[in-house]
């Protein structure tokens, strides 16, 4: 018993040295090496993962083994198109998560118009490998948008879009990053000078995001 406690204490010290977060109850036992008093109760068990494990019984944090349930991301890829895009994802289950996003269009690629736009999207994600929100996933999302461009003339754009993509999300410490690719179908209406037309198109949908897990 004493040998076992010494080994455990040594392992904990090693883990702390490596900078790995460990549960509070795994601190070195101050009475290690001494004989246990007769009236001493058994130490409480190590705290369980925040989430109940179903197939991976570990609380280790890191790629493919996170115990975080939430991820907040800035979608960096769309910044090239003038967007500030935020996305929140919450794991409901080891393999299923839901997500919602919002974006604002801050500038247009020509840089010569005042352009105000916003849009939102919501969707669900099914994990194929790993525990949500980490791992390899397939997502389906739907959303809507509206834009007003005011420069040499007013251009109003509004519509809906839906699409699917495959991707990967990783969490290292608290940093989350995601990559994805798929296709989106967009349908909407554009208004210019009292004329309007319906437009629709299939587009590749690429995704690159950085953020935090919590």
């Amino acid at each position, binding site marked *: 018993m004493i040998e076992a406690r010494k080994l455990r204490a040594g392992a904990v010290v090693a883990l702390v040295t490596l900078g790995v977060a460990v549960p509070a109850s795994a601190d070195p036992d101050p009475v290690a090496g001494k004989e246990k008093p007769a009236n001493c109760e058994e130490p409480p068990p190590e705290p369980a993962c925040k989430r109940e494990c179903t197939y991976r019984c570990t609380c280790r944090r890191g790629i493919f083994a996170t115990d975080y349930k939430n991820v907040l991301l800035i979608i960096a890829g*769309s910044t090239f198109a003038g967007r500030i895009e935020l996305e929140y994802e919450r794991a409901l289950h080891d393999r299923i998560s839901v997500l919602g996003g919002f974006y604002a269009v*801050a500038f247009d690629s020509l840089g010569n118009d005042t352009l105000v736009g916003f849009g939102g999207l919501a969707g669900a994600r099914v994990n194929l490998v790993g525990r949500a929100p980490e791992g390899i996933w397939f997502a389906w999302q739907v959303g809507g948008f509206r834009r007003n461009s005011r*420069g040499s003339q007013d251009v109003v754009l509004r519509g809906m879009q839906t699409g699917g993509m495959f991707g990967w999300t990783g969490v290292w410490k608290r940093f989350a990053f995601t990559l994805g690719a798929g296709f989106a179908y*967009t349908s909407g209406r554009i208004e210019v000078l009292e*004329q*309007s037309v319906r437009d629709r198109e299939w587009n590749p949908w690429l995704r690159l995001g950085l953020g935090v897990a919590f």
Partner: protein
Amino acid sequence: MPRCSTTVLVLVFAACGGCKTESPLEEYERPSYQRFEELEAGRHTLFGLPPENGPITEACCMPTCTYFEDGQLRTWTAPQYTVEDLQALRDDWELAEPWPVFEENELAPPPADVPIEQGVCAVLPRFDLKNGEGSPMPYDLVDYETRNEAEQEGAMVTHSGKCGACSSLRNLAVYIANPNLTEPVRRCGITGLIDRDLSRLACIASLGFDLPCAQAWDINTRNTQKECLRVCGEPGARKRPGNKPYDCNPEGFVPDDINLVNSCLACDEEYSLRLFRDAAGRSRRNSGLPSPICRTCIDVRRIEHRYPVPGR
């Protein structure tokens, strides 16, 4: 964290409210012809405004063409338009019936046997629709067989070939204000690839085009992306000048010579030019407007865009 993100968004909106820039017309700078003044156009001079240090020199390409008329060699230089000229095109005239939009943003290619550059498109004032002094003069865009026929009817020729979605004077002002129109339209095409919000068409329209003309450019861009993605997607293709190095004293020029332009533009002209001309009607070449892409003079129409409002 959410509070922080909200703050960022509020700041972005606040910043955007204060970053309104001038419209493209107000930013327009009359192109300078100073570097061409000492030069003389010859029989083999190309027409355009070549970029400095480009593959074609000013001596080889200038906004001037020579031509034979009544047995004499004459020169014609494209006029330099002022901001007031452009404003007049937008404010003094109004298309009586807006050009119809292309439904579903689709367009069927024209039959191959129909000549596109036949006849002229002219501005015909509609005095019967005039709404009092000071209001814009309504006009129709009418196809005529010849310039003489148009002038006899009291119409003013605005470009050669049949009228189309970009023939209006409002769109002409955008053409003049953006001598290098290919570049912003191409940037809109790239935006459309990144963004999923039908933003390509909106981006083109925000240059100042009306909707049908923006659609003609959009359909052209989409078709070029489809047919020429490999050629135009090569590394460095976007930064390549429009023209290839060219011998300015050849035995003779060929109209629409694709050896004059880079491979991406050549592909665009092969697959989209006919579709675009049929939809848009107006091009820089058939309107006599110089662009950074030098063209053979035989492809350029000598048209001066002065449209005095009758009775004003």
